[in-house]
């Protein structure tokens, strides 16, 4: 009997695939979170893009274009870190995680489901942002293979790092309802200091130093190399895109995220055992 069961027990990957499908259904059916995840970045884009539409920050570069690149980098943070750090505390509270823990679903399948959902949500969001950017704010699709390659690795490294960090950070909010109040300010502060809402080289030096410890600064810089003309590199504090450094910093955050998420993740609310 027991060997029989072991033979037919569904694989971690096949359950992971089922998790992706079910998570996506839940993600896109939840109207509030769909609005938060897709409409909000576009609204920000329209507001900032319109307010600063005439502002030239360099030759052939308006602030609007600079801002679109920053918002695409923010899209990584929204769909992974912000989304999970808010959603997982709710799942911990409403019984989702407890129910799953009582089934033969492996933990890894749960994480596969989360990562899959994050990637699909990101692709949807970035498509919307790029479309709006092309139509209204003069950005262009990447034109060289190198730019496409940079876009690809920056997105993947950024998503993996921020997904793991979101899973780890999900232990911080005390309640599901309070999660967004804890998570959103962190995202906002990073956006202010990492060259999304303001031109990075114009920020005070200490703020630049602060931001360079976190992934969003490097992500935004890599995205600017993809969506701004080559000449815009002169606007960076170092005068170049520093792509190697961007990749290294994001990779370090993948490792930090991996270690943290394994060390601190919990299925039950604090103080429940």
């Amino acid at each position, binding site marked *: 009997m027991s060997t029989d069961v*072991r033979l037919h027990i569904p694989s971690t990957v096949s359950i992971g695939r089922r998790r992706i499908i079910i998570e996506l259904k839940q993600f896109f059916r939840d109207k509030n979170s769909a609005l938060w995840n897709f409409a909000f970045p576009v609204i920000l884009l329209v507001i900032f893009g319109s307010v600063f539409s005439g502002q030239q920050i360099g030759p052939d570069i308006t602030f609007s274009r600079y801002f679109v690149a920053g918002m695409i980098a923010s899209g990584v943070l929204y769909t992974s870190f912000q989304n999970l750090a808010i959603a997982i505390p709710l*799942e911990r509270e*409403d*019984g*989702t995680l407890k*129910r799953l823990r009582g*089934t*033969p679903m*492996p933990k890894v399948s749960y994480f596969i489901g989360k990562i899959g959902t994050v990637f699909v949500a990101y692709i949807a969001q970035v498509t919307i942002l790029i479309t709006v950017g092309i139509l209204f704010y003069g950005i262009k699709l990447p034109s060289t293979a190198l730019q496409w390659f940079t876009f690809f690795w920056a997105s993947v490294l950024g998503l993996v790092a921020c997904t793991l960090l979101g899973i780890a950070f999900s232990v911080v909010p005390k309640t599901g309802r309070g999660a967004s109040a804890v998570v959103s300010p962190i995202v906002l502060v990073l956006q202010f200091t990492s060259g999304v809402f303001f031109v990075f080289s114009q920020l005070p030096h200490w703020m630049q130093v602060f931001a360079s410890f976190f992934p969003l600064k490097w992500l935004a810089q890599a995205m600017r190399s993809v969506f701004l003309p080559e000449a815009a590199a002169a606007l960076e504090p170092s005068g170049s895109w520093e792509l190697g450094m961007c990749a290294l910093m994001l990779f370090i955050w993948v490792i930090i995220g991996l270690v943290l998420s394994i060390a601190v993740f919990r299925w039950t609310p604090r103080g429940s055992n």
Partner: protein
Amino acid sequence: MGDVAIRVKDVRKRYGDLWALDGVSFDIAYGECFSLLGPNGAGKTTITEILEGYRSRDAGDAEVLGIDPAHADREWKSRVGIVLQSDRDLGDLTVSEAVHHFAGYYPNPRNPDEVIDAVGLTEKRKSRNEKLSGGQRRRLDVALGIIGRPSVLFLDEPTTGFDPEARRDFWDLIDGLKSEGTTILLTTHYLEEAEYLADRVAVISRGRVVECDTPARLGDRQKGTARVTWLENGHHRELQTMAPTKAVSDLSARFDGEIPGLTVQRARLEDVYLALLDGDRYAEGGDSE
């Protein structure tokens, strides 16, 4: 040894200064339906969650299907079904989506549509779970608990929020599972439910098993007095007696035939249950809360 599905031996669990479980022991045989009764805070959910693998224990031995639940693996979990108390998850999915999804976790699941039918949710299978009533929601939880064809099923207050008809349907469903040989640990507040479903019941109070027996024999129920009531001159009359048959025959002679408003009742499970809890409180020096 081989016919014990669940073994609990002197299990203790402490929350701060309070011993939530103060040495609980019982065995449940394969195919048996065993019910835990007791007031809120007696430790029913704590012992159940230890056996489900959710909680740690401070002392004692616990075994479910030959394995310590603290070291549960996937294979063990695929043979155990759990119906927890009141969850609010899965709201954005339909009944059918949820049941089909969870079927995919198990090596040998039941047919999802048959399970939906068995819990009486066929008409609601395309409804979002957030739109279900409390009782329907509970039935979904039961469906998800049995979808994996478990050998052992934990039911923690499964019929809360059911109307009487739904409760009857649920009892039939559990009867069906019993006849298939499923071992069931049932926690409930409804004594008539325990009486109908359980082969044995254990009364838990203050983290200890006060008594454990079949529903018919609990608290020497079968030996106790019977209560005979009737109407006489417009008044409600009552008699406690060890010989109810003789009492009825005497009354029948007195009324010359039919006795108005006659009832004869042995002690209900509820009566012995309450008596057991009272006795326990008295034994502890009467510090009731």
